[in-house]
């Protein structure tokens, strides 16, 4: 008798513990999309801004009761990964380092489309005597670890014969980064034009006007499990998204206007675009520009210990089937050209 009670008691406790662990259940009929939301504004940049502002997803899915949930994750790309991993997000649109490190870490995601043209500026305090990248040696650099600017810093340092070991990395982001830079607690870091405009920082390097390999190439990814369960929903979502990008590419001014809602001034947006065509910036194609850049990035990340093992993105990451079908159905196969590694359209 005593034994039985003991065993029952222990079983009950076991149930209590495992019952209490957060369930990984998928809520019904909600599509949850995560974006890196450094500024915490409720709108994304580029073509996404157009899709969000026009409520395209909401309209499409209203009729069959699906709701759309946009999440702006303060911890940026790595936070989007965590959301995808613990099943609180279904889709994400985030940078090269977070996407590649997630896939290398075994996160089951598929890339549906590319999101191009992310820019950044390497800033120092206005009174700093740092003039060039080489001056960064031994300095304290604010890095939003795990985001695309982290990868960018590695690239830029490498061009100048430096590595991350030559600088002091301070993991910081958002307003903490901005204050630390203006008070001189850190000597440099990647940030936005608004800091320069408000006279709080000076630029020593920028992605604007440089080779596209320095720009951020996001990918629009979906959790594999969600894709398997709702391929039809994924395709419909992608179709609306591509339609939105098409409309955005025809209405440059309107798109820019929507993008100011991220909190970035119109003039800054224009500067950041650096004269790149709206067509380039809205192209969803997983073309040579994306794949070659990702291939190079994987090597770079492996060499710098950002990923521990590498993988073949053609096999394990890209899922072109849906995008191809959608482009065909919308008769937009030729609206966007394929771009090469240098960002130039490939002539047929």
């Amino acid at each position, binding site marked *: 008798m005593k034994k039985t009670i003991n065993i029952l008691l222990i079983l009950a*406790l076991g149930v209590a513990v495992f019952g209490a662990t957060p369930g990984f259940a998928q809520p019904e009929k909600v599509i949850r999309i995560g974006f890196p939301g450094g500024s915490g504004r409720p709108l994304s940049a580029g073509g996404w801004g157009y899709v969000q502002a026009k409520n395209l997803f909401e309209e499409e899915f209203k009729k069959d009761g699906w709701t759309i949930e946009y999440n702006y994750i303060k911890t940026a790309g790595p936070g989007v990964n*965590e959301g995808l*991993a*613990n099943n609180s997000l279904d889709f994400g649109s985030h940078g090269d380092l977070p996407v590649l490190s997630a896939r290398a870490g075994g996160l089951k995601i598929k890339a549906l489309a590319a999101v191009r043209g992310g820019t950044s500026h390497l800033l120092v305090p206005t009174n700093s005597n740092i003039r060039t990248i080489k001056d960064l040696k031994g300095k304290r650099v604010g890095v939003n670890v795990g985001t695309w600017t982290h990868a960018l810093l590695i690239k830029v340092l490498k061009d100048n014969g430096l590595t991350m070991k030559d600088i002091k990395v301070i993991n910081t982001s958002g307003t903490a980064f901005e204050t630390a830079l203006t008070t001189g607690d850190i000597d440099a870091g990647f940030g936005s034009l608004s800091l320069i405009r408000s006279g709080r920082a000076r630029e020593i390097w920028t992605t604007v006007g440089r080779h596209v390999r320095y720009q951020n190439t996001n990918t629009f990814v979906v959790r594999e499990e969600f894709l398997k369960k709702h391929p039809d929903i994924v395709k419909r979502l992608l179709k609306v998204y591509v339609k939105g990008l098409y409309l955005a590419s025809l209405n440059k001014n309107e798109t820019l206007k929507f993008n100011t809602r991220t909190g970035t001034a119109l003039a800054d947006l224009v500067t950041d675009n650096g004269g790149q065509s709206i067509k380039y910036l809205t192209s969803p194609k997983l073309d040579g520009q994306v794949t070659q850049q990702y291939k190079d990035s994987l090597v770079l990340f492996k060499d710098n210990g950002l990923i521990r093992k590498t993988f073949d993105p053609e096999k394990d990451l890209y899922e072109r089937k849906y995008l191809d079908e959608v482009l065909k159905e919308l008769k937009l196969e030729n609206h966007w050209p394929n771009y090469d590694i240098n960002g130039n359209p490939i002539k047929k």
Partner: protein
Amino acid sequence: MSITTNVATFIRTRYHGLVSFLALFIVWSAVSHYELVSAEYLPSPPAVAKAFVKVIKSGQLGVSLGSSLVRIAEGFFIGTTLGFLFGVAMGVSATAERLFAPLFNALRQVPIIGWIPLIIVWCGINEPSKISFISIGAFFPILLSTFEGIRSVSKSYLEVAQVFEYNRIKLLRKIVVPGAVPNIVSGIRLSMGTSWLLVVWAEINTRSAYGIGDLLSSAGDGKKPDIAFVCIIVIGIVAFLINELFGHLEARLSTWRKSYR
């Protein structure tokens, strides 16, 4: 006793302490008044008072404190319930003790803050991660004290129970758990105190919109030392109140147990 005599005794008995606090206050005022340390680093007493009024009036403080307390309540509830259950099981059953003690002893070695990065990976940075973190912190003190409390129930009670032929449930309800109550309450006090500082840790590491830790760290980021100071004072007062409240309860329960004996 009238209020004036009350105040008089208070001053007489606390005379030295009051002098020290007064001295500290004067030094603080003087340092900030003569700007020996710039206001950016050390806010002046009036600035802190003003910030206090400001965050109360804007409702910022109330909402922050409220959100943190809700988090504590949830995490504390989960942690203490599980801790209590396991504590009772391990206290009454030697088999359960032998089964679980090594596991919990191993898990207890992780410095509680060390769980933060792992919990963020597991649960993200929203409410579930904060609540899990607080639950872990609240779990161990209550587990240990319940276990010790039950083990300290004297043999003679158990013998009496045997004479009266109590069954297991009745034994647990009438003798074992009541006997362990003072220990359990001191465990609750520890858990509660831990929860309070863990909510601040959790909020500093995983920012959310509201919470006393969020208010504190955003004040730090925004270089608003006056608001940070207000937060420190509030955090201290709440910690003090938790300690006093449960200490009081503990004292009452232990006198109750003495008279009960």
